[in-house]
């Protein structure tokens, strides 16, 4: 069995004491930052990235995987306890999780989220391990035209699944693509849009954009709102264990959520978000058992299913990244950036040229999930205390970590000035209602798209028909078009609005 052999190799790499330690540190840091209200996984990873610079690539990626999962779980914790989703995919967790907390059942809600996430993580890891090799085979059949078409599909997928105006989201992607082109053109050596500033010929650092827009921009808009009184249910968290009855209801919900999440996560676009929404909708349709609490009033299935789904989705969303090298969402875009910093070019060649890294990363995902349960459930009391820290002490610390983070990327103050500029830009985006996540995705994909377009058109001698005459590429583009049409259908359009309003 190749699968078992490969996984054994991966666990061999990940299970060294030192890597386990990094994973643990990553988990602790991830939860620590992720649990802070108003900081999503993107900002968390960007902020903690510098902590991995000094590590060897495998350890760094293992630590990042730990940070990623725990930042996500931290977001669910705030969703349940404070009714404040740390990120869009835990929006649905708020609905029933917060109600459970209000009825003094915060403990079982947190446990359901944790156990559901762990179970989904295990299944997701297996799916990833099983599907990655054949997909990698497929990836080697991809020419530049297919890659270009796939990126279009990914970008369209990311916007149709996001909330808010479709046109604006597409415009933000294009802006991201353009920002990604700043710097020296690899083919001609011309420094584009660099205004004769030597630092700009290297391009704009993605850490700078992520921290400026997601870190500073968010802080400024948070400070602009008067501190509203938040109800934090710290006293209610006594009994963690769900009752037997809870388990009976949770288990099938977890299974359904995991299944749905894994399938939707592979799709390009915000897999985790869609998965959580779909899983919640599915649970609502399933017949109530006698004596069950209605949805919206603290049903445990309403926590277990979306949490399982979003974790399974975030797990399988690694598949397009690791096999094709194409990030399906903003968090994965950040992972690409992290890998490039460690001199790894994500894509099909990683698995063959660097199997230790590839399988080690997959194994570490499972370890990260396991640690999430081992670490977070017993320590939940500490994380909850963090929730009570007033924002006025948090935000200077966040500003400081962002500033130190960008400076240490290149040990250059230029990045510090740039992050200031992007902070202003980020706040402007908030004010004019532009969602910044598509921008980051476009930014990472910009140079890749240009390169593949260039190659595709070079091979076809300038004929654009190459994108529709090659079957694979035509299929991908047709899928992208179909997605756009479906979203623009009036019936779906209204449903989509409803789904995102339902917070």
């Amino acid at each position, binding site marked *: 069995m190749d699968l078992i052999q490969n996984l054994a190799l991966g666990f061999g790499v990940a299970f060294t004491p030192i890597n386990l330690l990094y994973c643990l540190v990553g988990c602790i840091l991830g939860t620590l930052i992720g649990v802070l209200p108003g900081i999503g996984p993107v900002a968390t990873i960007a902020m903690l990235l510098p902590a991995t610079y000094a590590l060897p690539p495998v350890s760094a990626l293992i630590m990042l995987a730990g940070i990623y999962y725990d930042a996500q779980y931290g977001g669910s914790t705030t969703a349940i306890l404070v009714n404040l989703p740390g990120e869009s995919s835990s929006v649905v967790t708020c609905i029933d999780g917060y109600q459970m907390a209000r009825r003094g059942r915060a403990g079982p809600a947190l446990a359901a989220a944790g156990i559901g996430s762990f179970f989904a993580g295990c299944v997701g890891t297996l799916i990833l391990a099983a599907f990655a090799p054949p997909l990698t085979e497929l990836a080697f059949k991809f020419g530049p035209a297919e890659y270009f078409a796939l990126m279009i599909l990914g970008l369209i997928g990311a916007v149709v699944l996001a909330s808010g105006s479709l046109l604006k989201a597409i*415009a933000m992607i294009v802006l991201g693509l353009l920002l990604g082109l700043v710097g020296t053109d690899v083919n001609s050596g011309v420094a584009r849009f660099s205004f004769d500033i030597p630092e700009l010929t290297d391009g704009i650092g993605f850490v700078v954009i992520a921290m400026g827009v997601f870190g500073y921009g968010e802080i400024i808009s948070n400070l602009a709102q008067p501190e509203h009184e938040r109800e934090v249910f710290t006293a209610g968290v006594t009994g963690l264990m769900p009752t037997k009855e809870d388990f009976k209801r949770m288990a099938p919900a977890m299974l359904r959520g995991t299944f749905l999440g894994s399938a939707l996560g592979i799709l390009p676009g915000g897999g985790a978000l869609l998965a959580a929404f779909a899983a919640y909708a599915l649970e609502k349709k399933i017949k109530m058992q006698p004596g069950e609490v209605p949805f919206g009033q603290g049903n445990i299935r309403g926590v277990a299913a979306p949490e399982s789904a979003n974790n399974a989705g975030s797990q399988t969303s690694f598949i397009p990244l690791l096999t094709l090298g194409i990030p399906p969402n903003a968090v994965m875009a950040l992972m690409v950036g992290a890998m490039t910093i460690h001199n790894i070019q994500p894509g099909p060649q990683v698995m063959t040229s660097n199997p230790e890294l590839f399988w080690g990363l997959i194994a570490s995902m499972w370890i990260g999930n396991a640690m999430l349960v081992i670490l977070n459930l017993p320590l939940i009391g500490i994380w909850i205390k963090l929730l009570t820290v007033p924002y006025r002490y948090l935000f200077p610390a966040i500003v400081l970590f962002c500033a130190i983070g960008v*400076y*240490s990327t290149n040990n250059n*103050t230029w990045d510090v000035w740039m992050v200031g500029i992007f902070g202003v830009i980020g706040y402007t985006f908030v004010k004019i209602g532009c969602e910044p996540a598509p921008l980051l995705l476009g930014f990472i994909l910009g140079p890749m798209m240009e390169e593949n377009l260039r190659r595709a058109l070079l091979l076809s001698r*300038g004929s654009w028909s190459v994108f529709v005459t090659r079957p694979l590429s035509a299929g991908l583009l047709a899928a992208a078009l179909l997605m756009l049409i479906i979203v623009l259908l009036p019936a779906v359009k209204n449903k989509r609005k409803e789904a995102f309003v339902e917070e």
Partner: protein
Amino acid sequence: MNIKSQKDFFSGLMFMGVGLAFAWGATTYSVGQGARMGPGYFPLYLGVLMAILGAAITFSSLVVESVGGDKIGKWAWKPLFFIILANLVFGVLLAGLPSLKIPAAGLIVAIYALVFIASMGEAGWKVKNTFILATILAAGSYVAFVLALKLQFQVWPAFITG
């Protein structure tokens, strides 16, 4: 003609402006043709695409009704100013500005300055609390970034370390 969504109206204008700027900038490089794309080819078409999208957004903001006019609202100048200033001062103090002959004051001083300036962006800040916070963060950063992660920083002011 009324603006029905302020946010869309101005974001559309922004996309148009930035798109045109990129497209214009791209024409200063060689554009080339499909088969032989020059450095200006891709940015030129992206810029044009973005300007068109921006125009569509602005147009729809004048036509499509939105709830409550989708107002942009007041800008939070105070936090904006202090957060960005804190960031800039941190950069200057940390590494100095050779072009203006400002010597580096090092990490510790920079952290105190950043925490104090950033705190001013919030209404109810108190000197004592901020001082305690800055001290904790300075000590924590020294241990975490300098001792544990061994990142390269100038820790103390240049006139002490020489």
